């Protein structure tokens, strides 16, 4: 016969105003197996916990029900208390008679509340009688980290983890780390030169003893679980031997062929053997295999001839590397929305209509014009530029519903950059709202308007067309209620920030969630902003949503600190509430494998004595399983059960109702 104690909490008057707690305790004492009941004012208080501990020890109780608030609040508290009294913590269960009872029933005669509390507590009691002793699952932690994405968020995360004394692998898709920030000219609101603050970080990452760079590489596959991931990385063929190359530049100087530069967003050309930009990290070129005639049809080969260290290797192939890590930081960043969708603004058709990142390159001293603002069509210095905000943002019909957040600030910055470089130039900005929330941001936009002479017009632009060599921008100024037409020399579109191309397929590989815009989902948008639903995988930067530099850096550091916390223990404790497979009855339909949102179920071979495979069964990885129960609902043969919530327990609870 079990020896169970039931403790009913009054929670001041939170529970007792609509529930007769003494009556609940009295009813419970009549049930078989209950040896003791208590009606107490605040169970969670220190005296309450002490009373619980003493009672458990003195009466040799083997199970506890605390009828109190939601288990989200104090399940941990009470389980710890009974553990100290020598009981298995999973022999303590909570009956929620506050959130699910006293707070929703306003009957002060306490009739309804009391009756429901009795039912709820009795159900939990019956479940508890069938509880088994469970022990926390302990898994080892591999203390190396993987960072995916070498933009500012990823670099920050990598440096912080490495500074904490852990090895980091930094994987970057492009030939150089640096990401979008490396393209910027100056950064708001302090107007410091982006490259001046970015390149030291890049070099720090390159030279750090504990950081291993994989540039021009992509994550192909992820296996394993928190603390024990196995990552398959594809190192794309550079056709240049990284160990031999000195980065002298002879090859790209001699290469006779050109293609549009991705880094300069098509504003200028690059060679077919190239580094994206002069400060590339590492300073090792790649060959554009889609276009290089040597690779396509075995013609040319000039780079090989001029390369003194003989680093060029046309036979190089993609290399597959497998790395073992314990935690992952995903920092894959953003893309700008494809402006082709916005035909009325003429992007792609009118040469002098460019996007924000292109303007950054025009204004950058290392850009195609050496920092002089020249319009792309004829190199003329524009006398007027119209900046159009919210292109694609806040546009449910053609673009995205969300606000891209950084455009208000970078457009204000653009107007200043333009004014600083072209003193008699006039900047016009069409905006819907100026959203400048952030430290010193509002002052920055006001400065653009009041001191730097930017003309702000409140309204959307309807269309941009060409007339007599000028760009006619037709929009509205809703502040004066008028239609406005401006003759401009150049138009800059602040196009929406969207998730990185391929963000969804990477999420599927990693087993993390994403929203309808393919931005990665946080575990909790407020309280767990860098965690994902998958243990051991963290997020940083604008792969979560539009974000500026300070936010991305903070998030990179935050993710790093989460990784450090995970790495601070040798073994990792996990809740033992996981799915268990009864191998005898599993018929290998694999519905559970498809159903599991955490990719925790795999196929296991059952072998006979001779080592021959006789059948296959489902196998749950305790490290990955979160105990959500989806597989149990999917299982047709009732083969899977959840420890702590077995079918037997759940039915017993239902039957007690």
């Amino acid at each position, binding site marked *: 016969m079990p020896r169970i104690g039931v403790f009913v909490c009054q929670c001041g008057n939170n529970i007792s105003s609509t529930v007769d707690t003494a009556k609940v305790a009295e009813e419970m004492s009549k049930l078989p197996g209950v040896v003791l009941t208590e009606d107490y004012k605040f169970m969670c208080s220190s005296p309450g916990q002490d009373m619980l501990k003493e009672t458990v020890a003195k009466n040799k109780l083997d199970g506890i029900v605390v009828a109190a608030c939601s288990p989200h609040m104090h399940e941990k508290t009470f389980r710890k208390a009974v553990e100290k009294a020598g009981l298995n913590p999973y022999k303590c269960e909570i009956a929620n008679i506050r959130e699910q009872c006293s707070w929703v029933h306003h009957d002060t005669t306490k009739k309804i509340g009391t009756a429901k509390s009795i039912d709820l507590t009795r159900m939990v009691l019956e479940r508890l009688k069938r509880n088994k002793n469970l022990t926390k699952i302990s898994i080892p932690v591999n203390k190396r980290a993987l960072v995916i994405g070498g933009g500012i968020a990823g670099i920050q995360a990598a440096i912080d983890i490495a500074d904490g004394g852990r090895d980091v692998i930094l994987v970057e898709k492009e030939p150089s780390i640096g990401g979008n920030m490396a393209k910027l000219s100056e950064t708001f609101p302090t107007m410091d030169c982006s490259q001046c603050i970015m390149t030291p970080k890049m070099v720090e990452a390159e030279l750090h003893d504990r950081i291993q760079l994989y540039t021009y590489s992509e994550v192909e596959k992820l296996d394993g679980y928190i603390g024990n991931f196995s990552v398959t990385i594809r190192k794309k063929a550079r056709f240049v031997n990284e160990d031999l190359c000195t980065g002298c530049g002879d090859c790209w100087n001699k290469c006779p062929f050109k293609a549009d530069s991705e880094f300069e967003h098509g504003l200028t050309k690059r060679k077919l053997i190239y580094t994206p930009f002069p400060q590339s990290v590492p300073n090792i070129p790649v060959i554009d295999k889609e276009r290089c005639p040597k690779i396509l049809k075995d013609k040319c080969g000039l780079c090989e001839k001029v390369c003194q260290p003989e680093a060029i290797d046309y036979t190089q192939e993609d290399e597959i590397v497998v790395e073992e890590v314990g935690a992952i930081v995903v920092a894959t960043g953003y893309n700008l929305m494809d402006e082709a969708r916005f035909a009325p603004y003429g992007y792609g058709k009118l040469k002098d209509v460019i996007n924000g990142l292109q303007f950054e390159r025009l204004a950058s001293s290392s850009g195609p014009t050496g920092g002089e603002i020249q319009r792309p069509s004829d190199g003329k210095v524009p006398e007027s530029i119209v900046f159009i905000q919210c292109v694609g943002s806040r546009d449910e019909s053609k673009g995205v519903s969300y606000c891209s957040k950084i455009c208000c600030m970078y457009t204000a910055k653009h107007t200043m950059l333009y004014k600083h470089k072209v003193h008699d130039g006039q900047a*016009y900005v069409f905006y819907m709202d100026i959203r400048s929330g952030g430290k010193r941001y509002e002052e920055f936009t006001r400065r653009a308007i009041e001191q730097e002479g930017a003309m702000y017009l409140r309204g959307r632009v309807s269309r941009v067309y060409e007339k007599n060599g000028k760009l006619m921008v037709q929009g509205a100024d809703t502040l*004066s209620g008028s239609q406005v037409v401006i003759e401009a020399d150049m138009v800059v579109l602040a196009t929406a920030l969207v998730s990185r191309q391929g963000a969804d397929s990477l999420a599927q590989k990693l087993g993390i969630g994403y929203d309808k815009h393919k931005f990665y989902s946080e575990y909790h948008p407020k309280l767990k902003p860098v965690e994902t639903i998958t243990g051991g995988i963290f997020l940083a930067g604008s792969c979560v949503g539009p974000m500026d530099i300070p936010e991305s850096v903070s998030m990179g550091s935050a993710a790093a600190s989460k990784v450090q916390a995970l790495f601070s223990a040798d073994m990792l404790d996990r809740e033992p509430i996981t799915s268990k497979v009864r191998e005898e009855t599993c018929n290998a339909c694999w519905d559970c494998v498809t159903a599991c949102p955490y990719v925790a179920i795999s196929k296991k071979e059952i072998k006979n004595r001779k080592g021959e495979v006789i059948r296959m069964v489902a196998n749950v990885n305790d490290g990955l399983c979160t105990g959500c129960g989806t597989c149990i609902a999917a299982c047709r043969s009732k083969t899977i059960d959840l420890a702590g919530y077995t079918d037997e327990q759940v039915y017993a609870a239902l039957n007690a109702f």
Partner: protein
Amino acid sequence: MRIKLQNSNIGSEFVKYIERISGETAMRCYQCGNCTGGCPVSYKMDHGPSQIIRLMQIGQDEEIQKANSMWVCVGCMQCYSRCPQSVSAASIFESLRAQALRSDGDHTEIAELPKEFLKNAPQQAIVCGFRKFVS
């Protein structure tokens, strides 16, 4: 209203002149509308105080001069006391009136006023009239 906005509109000579004699900067205004909201007579104006400042920002000189707004303003300074950016619409209106009178042939020469009229008119009315219509 359809506006063809040109670089010359921004900070036009007219706007600069008004800004100089009023001591106000039109670009300081961020169009919250508090002045128009609090003005006791804005409902009688063609354009409220905030709209007049907006028209200054986008250099619509004619529209400003055409509007009755400056003549309706009583100079109570409510607009200025409420303005978060410390722009005095009242000062701008006063400057607009002064500009209108200075440039307009239709202003009153004190010397030409009939003696009989001056004899019978209340003193305060003459002072106020001088203040508002003579510059």
